[in-house]
């Protein structure tokens, strides 16, 4: 069975059929852009041109505020690592890029801390699940930076010191307060619990309640 073909007749005016006015108009558009961008660029007035190019190594476009980027490890009030080596993040990590070797914390207030904390930025898929999983606000990806290119693969594995170098003290509750901290601090300001090692002169962070309200 033959397929019916419906011929649509679109004659148009003679000017349309020759294409010439349309071609001239199109050339006019491109020529206007060319002149504006060319002379703006030659005379060094990039701002006045329409050029949208960002010349990357010299110019950088800021990442949005909620960008997930390079990891960092947050710090306790005394400058130690916040991580308590609970192994949540290596468990949840779909790329298995986090390696944690725990050790006993000398502090006494918390059980463990990471002896080794390494993230292989080449394997990381930047999903942010480690940040979601962390109960201590120890790992974050809010550096507004990205993993740096390296010449050797080994250089892309960031160790604890490297990760902590970008860290700051968090306003979240830090570990070592005890299981019943809510009840404990209901009416009174938090005091450091008794322990063998108390960092000398380190100011304690804000109260958990105040911080709770802040969140």
């Amino acid at each position, binding site marked *: 069975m033959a397929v019916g073909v419906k011929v649509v007749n679109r004659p148009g005016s003679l000017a349309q059929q020759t294409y010439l006015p349309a071609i001239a108009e*199109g*050339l006019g558009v491109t*020529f206007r*852009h060319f002149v504006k*961008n*060319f002379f703006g*660029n030659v005379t060094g007035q990039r701002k006045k041109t329409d*050029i949208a*190019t960002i010349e990357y190594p010299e110019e950088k476009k800021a990442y949005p505020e909620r960008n997930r980027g390079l990891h960092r490890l947050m710090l306790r009030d005394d400058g130690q690592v916040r991580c308590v080596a609970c192994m949540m993040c290596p468990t949840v990590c779909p790329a298995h890029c986090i390696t944690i070797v725990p050790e006993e914390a000398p502090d006494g207030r918390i059980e463990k801390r990471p002896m080794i904390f390494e993230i292989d930025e080449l394997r990381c898929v930047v999903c942010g699940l480690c940040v979601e999983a962390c109960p201590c606000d120890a790992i974050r990806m809010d550096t507004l930076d990205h993993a740096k290119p390296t010449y050797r693969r080994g250089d892309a594995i960031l160790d604890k010191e490297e990760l902590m170098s970008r860290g700051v003290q968090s306003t979240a509750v830090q570990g070592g307060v005890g299981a019943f901290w809510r009840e404990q601090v209901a009416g009174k300001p938090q005091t450091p619990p008794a322990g063998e090692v108390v960092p000398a002169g380190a100011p304690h962070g804000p109260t958990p309640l105040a911080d709770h309200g802040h969140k």
Partner: protein
Amino acid sequence: MEYGSLGFQALAATIKIVFMILGFLMPLASILTWMERRESAMMQDRLGPNRANIGPFKLWGITHFMADAVKFLFKEDFIPPKAHKFLFMWAPIMAMAPALIVAAIIPFGAPLCWGEMTEKVGLGGACANPVNLQIAQLDVGLLFYFAISSLAVYGATLAGWASHNKWAMMGGLRATSQMMSYEVTMGMAVLGSFLVYGTLEPGAIADQQTHIINFGHYHSSWGIFLQPAGFILFLTAAIAETKRTPFDIPEGEPEIIGYFVEYSGLRFGMFFLGEFLEIVVSSAIMITIFFGGWHMGGTVDGFLAHVPNIWIFPKSLLFSLLTLVIWSIKVFVFCGFQLMIRWSLPRFRSDQLMRLGWQRLLPISIANVVATALVVLWAQQ
């Protein structure tokens, strides 16, 4: 050396050939490869390639063409195992050589007045012993242009056939049909100019166009004003001959890559450069026929003719150099215009291309020839 002797002619021709190829065609075509990318970027609100530099000399990235050449040199020169080796190697030369050969008939400046260099300038046949800035003065002129530029189709066809690749084959076939179709229109379009100027010799055609517009003595005006339809037809056909968008069916980047799909390294570079050489040469031909060659209107020519002898440079040489500069600027601007067309217009489909060539342009070009003939006949009586 005596003027007009064989040795004199051979020496002059050699100097002109070396200048034309090494001093003008190849540098301009090379720079066009960079300019096309930069100009298209500017038209599309981008920056384009601006990084290449030699030490501190950056010059807006103009040295990109050198980087490209170096890259071409160091790439693997791959020949497909089942390709026809000889033709595969011969095709890029066939694609590139015609553009260089055709340049022989283009007049690129005012003639030098041999023997009276310090007294006269080569304007309006003032010289007793002129040395024309034109490699070959052929009376068949434009016919030579058509004869040689038709050979360029062999480059594309042989490349497509010798590659032993079905996409290349289709590209070669498309190139054949397209170039043969548009050569007809091209020849017809120039016939009008031939009727007006009464000669096919490009130098003589250019020498007649001494004024931009001259109503009293009509065939001393630029060809664009005497043959506007012929110019548009010739321009369209010339762009189709260079196989570039909007007539890039043989290359067909989105569909078949084209007749040079199997080529790499410097062999591909020759196709690439040959395409830009064709742009330069077709621009130069159009400048010669339709925009007065090296003439810039009676006023400017007359003004430049008063150039004095400066230091060791006689006035005839200086005048020729000035006209050479005028001619170069015209060719350069026209090349830029061709690049602009390539980046402004959408491409044709293969059947639209054929319909445009045979059913639109060819009848119009024949009508143009008939109309021109009638007007010339009427004007002569």
